């Protein structure tokens, strides 16, 4: 005679079932904890994304100051919140971009002493897609074609896009206008790295030469400025740019945004 199947289970089996939830809860708690620790919140961005759908953000700095590392942290933050990030690189191959993520993730894992880092990594990884182009081979129609492929085939629907290495030259205006259009239609926000140069004159209010023509398109601009041995994260446009929020620092050793709490 069969009784209630639950009664046939040993204590050990019942215990095991309960533990599944605890384990899964652990991973999601861990994610939440990391999200809460995200130092960017100190810039006044309360939670979620700094940008809304269709908005543009720029991370401006000279070569080698840490633009990519900074954006990878923004991306990881989104991925921890299970938001998909499309990372487009015009400089580095897929392998190198992957390495950036792994490195930054490992540093965060070390900084916050996370034991289950491998499991956590496995759960965030599916939220990232890397696309690389040669600079001369990149165009907005091409990107749109790829993006449509991904979305229509249900492979990947990005919530945010990161474009690393787009040259902000004379030809960029049209590309940016097209991208803005695309981002609005798809409800995605886009982060760009903008490489500035020491010798170039900046425009009114210190706007870097690269951004003068296209500044209107950007809702947020953040500048990474080496100050002594530190790298200061300055809000240039958007929340915090009026000096009403504290500036943050990048740790030059780990390239991580410093948690000054």
């Amino acid at each position, binding site marked *: 005679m069969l009784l209630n199947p639950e009664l046939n289970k040993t204590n050990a089996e019942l215990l095991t079932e309960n533990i599944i939830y605890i384990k899964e809860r652990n991973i999601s708690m861990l994610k939440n904890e990391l999200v809460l620790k995200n130092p960017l919140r100190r810039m006044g961005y309360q939670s979620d994304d700094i940008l809304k759908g269709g908005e543009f953000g720029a991370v401006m700095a000279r070569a080698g100051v840490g633009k990519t590392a900074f954006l990878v942290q923004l991306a990881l933050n989104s991925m921890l919140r299970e938001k998909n990030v499309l990372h487009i690189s015009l400089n580095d191959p897929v392998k190198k*971009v992957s390495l950036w993520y792994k490195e930054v993730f490992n540093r965060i894992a070390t900084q916050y002493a996370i034991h289950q880092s491998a499991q956590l990594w496995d759960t965030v990884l599916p939220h990232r897609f890397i696309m690389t182009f040669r600079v001369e081979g*990149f165009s907005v129609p091409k990107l749109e074609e790829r993006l449509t492929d991904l979305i229509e085939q249900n492979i990947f629907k990005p919530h945010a896009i990161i474009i690393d290495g787009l040259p902000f030259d004379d030809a960029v205006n049209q590309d940016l206008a097209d991208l803005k259009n695309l981002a609005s239609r798809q409800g995605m926000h886009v982060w760009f790295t903008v490489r500035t140069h020491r010798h170039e004159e900046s425009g009114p209010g210190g706007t870097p030469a690269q951004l003068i023509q296209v500044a209107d398109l950007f809702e947020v601009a953040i500048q990474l400025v080496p100050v002594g041995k530190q790298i200061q994260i300055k809000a240039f446009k958007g929340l915090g740019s009026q000096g009403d929020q504290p500036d943050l620092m990048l740790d030059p050793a780990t390239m991580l945004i410093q948690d000054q709490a």
Partner: protein
Amino acid sequence: MKKDIRNVRNIGISAHIDSGKTTLTERILYYTQRIHTMHDVKGKDGVGATMDSMELEKERGITIASAATYCEWQGHEINIIDTPGHVDFTIEVERSLRVLDGAILVLCAVAGVQSQSITVDQQMKRYKVPGIAFVNKCDRSGANPDRVVRQLKEKLEHNTVTMQLPIGLEADFEGVVDLVSMKAIYFDGDKGEQVRQEEIPSDLRQAAQDHREMLIDQASMFSNELTEAILEEKKVTAEMIIAGIRQGVVERRLTPVFIGSAYKNKGIQPLLDAVTRLLPCPLNVDNQALDMNNEEQPVVLSNEIDKPLVALAFKLEDGPYGQLTYIRVYQGALAKGDTIINVRTGKKVKVGRVIRMHADQMEDIESIPAGYIGALFGVDCASGDSFVAPGISLTMTSMYVPEPVISLAIFPKDNKSEVNVSKALRRFTKEDPTFKAYVNEETGDTIISGMGELHLEVYIERMRREYQAEVTTSPPRVAYRETITQKAEFDYIHKKQTGGAGQFARVAGYLEPVQDEDFVFENQIVRGAIPTQFIAACEKGFKNSMQKGPKMEFLVTGIRVVINDGASHSVDSSDMAFQAAARSAFRQGYAKAKPVIQEPIMKVVVETPTDFQGAVMSTLNQRRGMIVGSQDEGPFSVIEAQVPLSEMFGYSTNLRSVTKGRAQFTMEFLTYKQLPQSIADELMKKAAEKKKNVA
């Protein structure tokens, strides 16, 4: 053997299947007087071309194994390495490309740049092999060398330079105009052996003049002497042009295009001239070895023959006289009677016969100097092994051999086949380090494993052909694993009192997951709760339990076992009792430790024409693949994904059909990951059914 290394060419002939590669090789050997009759692939005379020495290749009209053959032309020594054009024999291709200094890329004048041409071109680029192009089959209807040159530029992004113009095309193809010497060249005699030079036909004169100007212009990019001559309006000599083009070829920035018809014996001799004049000699190519004493750091080798020997065995063949080892010497010289070291095994080897190969025939020589290719008899080694002079520790190939990812059981049909299968397996495993064979202890089945389905298929076919061994095979199998995901305690008493000596043992402690290790055993027993002499028995009991997981009988990995308590009995405790206790304790803890099944995940990299990118991603997505990224390389895109191995069966066929055969992929083991619950359930259901059927 002549010793001027500047007159040596080690070349490969790369081509799409059916573009006439083997026929071209055959003609080259005929004109260089290495053979005295000509045959064709799939020949009506039943002899077959000389380079395709394997039956299977003859039948399918493809080249699988790479034979090296030697010939002479105009005082130059040419070694031709027959490279397989097929994607799936990667290790063969990689080995043969390593020993090449240059290559002829053969293209069909009718079909143009086909998928396979793209593949072989990619391989040549990957291994940085400089090349010249030969547009074959100009006698065929629909031949259009101009179109092929355009495709070379557009599809393969070659900076081409036209070296010849055709005199007539299709059925009227008579000969070629040489744009360097500005002569018309015709090929007379039954077999085109008499080369006749004439004035350029009047209707081609203007075109020839125009093309020559372009040729000089392109050559001048690589030669200051030529540029000066042009600027100062001095006479431009043939030598100047050749030197400029050669420089462009060696730098891999220029691809000269030649034309002809191997089948009709036209254009072969000028192509041979081009091999000697334009392709690099071993001195022009930097070869690197890896220093074993310095974390495999690359070391540049010198071609000097008085330096210590460094050589690579790139191909083995089992002939009627024993094992023949094809070898390329990179530094120093390899002579009869020398003692050399096999870097992989560390064993000393005495060199017996040293020979030079011509497909199936051979010729004894005294030594092989740096830059040359030859073969050794009676040397026991595996292919890919490096040989060096005693005292140095350089290796030509990394010691890393990827682990096989797919396996299947083979069953010989009869006794004779059984004997032959074992012979065949002995040879194949030696020739190809990625192919492995073993007997499954439990079932007694012979299992073969390798790098892909086709990889195994080819060997099964070869068993049949070369060893008359008929076998049937099981479906391919994936190596699943089990592991635990959380810590769990165990405390087990093994007690038996059934008359005679009793058994008593108690083992307590915990299991926990561990990363990057298969099995860790830790003894934290204090105050002799388990006497020291039984600790090893405990460890053995736990370790043996890992062989067959309690969940699905797969291998268990990634577990740390800690014992911290226990009990023994002065009379009834024994090794056996503790082993039994450990086994049961393992099962007890395991059940609580949330065991899961893991599956091998492969890193799959697909190179596809950009047009098919979307289609390829879709194929990967359908196979539970996680796409890491896509890399846009102009006409080509590279897609990287992580896909479970169990989903990769039949992928090459699938990929071929969605990309019209124009994409290729590589696959290597990446990691083990937890199987999704639905698939694990299915697997368990299948296993249960199987068990039921057996019962």
